[in-house]
């Protein structure tokens, strides 16, 4: 099984799909080495522009480029993309529905030692609240690659979230499908549904293994698209398994958990438990230690799964 950070897969995919596609232009805000757009810069320097440490302007320039028919990738860390430049994304990209792909890296606690200022835990909630925005959070290298292809083919604004840390491949057969807005069922199950996004898909799979040893059959969904969320898959899970656990490397407010709860409570109410950061900032530390400290683990998913099953509506 391979192990690669989704940001590395992003950089490689930019070259793979963008090298011979003149429509594609890549912008970065002085973080090309870290976001991996530097890989594209090296191969396609004529369509790469470093906008300097000026994220707001980068989003506006991306919008202007897009008005001329370019497919523009704009990258920086998730905190600066989704939060510092939020209003530029709203008014210059989402409102006119321009073809800009905000590809943010270094999301979540697994940023690690740089600490709270650099650990975006609110980006999915913020980007999800913007009309016209598609929000994608792939779990591994292969799906990050297909996500890049999918957002090139989709015309309109997208926010994609990539991680810093290397993660195990979930998709080992390259023929898997990645369709925007369509969750992938990774494990079939009838007792509870574990819905993961990003690197929490791997933890959900581990949790399902643990639950299996205790006689609980958990369904596992990779919810790689936070918006538009796959309502059908969620309602089906509520009907067929009657209990749901969401897992995300994000604040508990407004992210995957919120999106799933919105669908469940309006369509087919059932217990929904959420594994997420409890409305706190991160801190410095090794990624694995931080995930443990904040309870973003397979063990926590197992615990919540049992709670959700116990709370099932009889």
């Amino acid at each position, binding site marked *: 099984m391979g192990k690669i950070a989704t940001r590395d897969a992003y950089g490689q995919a930019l070259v793979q799909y963008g090298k011979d596609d003149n429509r594609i*232009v890549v912008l970065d805000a002085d973080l090309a080495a870290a976001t991996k757009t530097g890989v594209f810069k090296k191969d396609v320097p*004529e*369509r790469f*522009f470093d*906008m*300097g440490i*000026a994220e*707001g*302007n980068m*989003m*506006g*320039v*991306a*919008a*202007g*480029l*897009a*008005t*001329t*028919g*370019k497919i*523009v990738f704009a990258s920086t860390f998730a905190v600066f993309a989704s939060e510092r430049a939020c*209003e*530029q994304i709203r*008014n*210059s990209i989402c*409102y*006119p*529905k321009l073809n800009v792909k905000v590809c943010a890296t270094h999301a979540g606690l697994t940023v690690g030692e740089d600490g709270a200022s650099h650990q975006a835990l609110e980006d999915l909630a913020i980007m999800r609240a913007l009309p016209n925005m598609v929000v994608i959070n792939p779990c591994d290298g292969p799906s990050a690659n297909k996500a890049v292809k999918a957002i090139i083919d989709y015309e309109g604004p997208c926010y994609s979230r990539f991680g810093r840390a290397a993660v195990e491949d979930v998709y080992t057969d390259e023929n898997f499908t990645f369709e925007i807005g369509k969750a992938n069922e990774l494990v079939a199950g009838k007792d509870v549904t574990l819905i993961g996004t990003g690197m929490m898909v791997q933890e959900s799979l581990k949790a399902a293994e643990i639950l299996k040893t205790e006689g609980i059959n958990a369904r596992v969904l990779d919810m790689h698209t936070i918006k538009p969320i796959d309502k059908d898959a969620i309602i089906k899970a509520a009907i067929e398994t009657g209990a749901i656990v969401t897992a995300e490397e994000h604040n508990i407010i407004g992210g995957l958990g919120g999106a799933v709860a919105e669908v469940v409570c309006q369509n087919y109410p059932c217990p929904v438990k959420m594994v997420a950061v409890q409305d706190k900032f991160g801190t410095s530390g090794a990624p694995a230690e931080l995930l443990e400290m904040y309870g973003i683990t397979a063990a926590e998913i197992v615990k919540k799964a049992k709670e959700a099953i116990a709370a099932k509506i009889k």
Partner: protein
Amino acid sequence: MDKLKKLELMKTATNIRKSVIEEVFNAKSGHPGGSLSCTDMLTVLYFDEMNVDTKNPQWADRDRFVLSKGHCAPALYATLAEKGFFPKEDLVTLRKTDSYLEGHPNMNHVPGVDMSTGSLGQGISAAVGMALAGKIDNKDYRVYSILGDGELEEGQVWEAAMAAAQFKLDNLTAFVDYNGLQIDGPIKEVMCSEPIAAKFEAFGWNVYEICGNDVEEIKDALEKAKTVKGKPTMIIGKTFKGKGVSFMENQVGWHGKAPNQEQRDQAIAELDEYLKGLEA
């Protein structure tokens, strides 16, 4: 500029000013002051400078314009309607729920609008992006923008200014509508953006200072800008807010206020009088 051309442009500008008054009067809200101050710049751009096609607003090789001070949409709409992008009769629907003429420009609804704006400081970045695209594709279209002097208080303007110089965007020409007033008062008192010319020069721009209500000076500056290589050009046009309507001129209170019936009648009468003088 020959006298006839100048006269023609001044007449067009006056007709646009009349439309601005009618728009804001009918909407019962909007921004007449800044719209009237930048009218002459818009007139020269659309009637003596830019390569556009009213029959094909999305023509790929057209010159582009971004109204970075998006609240002056009444002036932009009036100019586009005068040019023939859409019927002048529609102007009175400004700011109504069933109208495509929103309070601030929407590129997806209004023929001829190249970028949605309204949040200050953002339009100039989009103009930089359009100019950069022209360079990438080796196209010879030009990109124009108008900023407010109050807008210069937004940090993003200076991020964009740096980028335009960094990428040597000599296909970009922007204006500052330097009327000296912003909503809360004179720029000198609220948050002084002066000295404006020195700032843009320091940021690597070619800079001209002109009277921004004089169509001939505007055209001359635009012509000179086209000969400058390797640098973007900023034309700082000293203007009067509310230009053309005596009781609005240089009055901060007319930044975002609609005239009542009596005020509308007086404004139109003054502009008609001016028009008559031009025709004679």
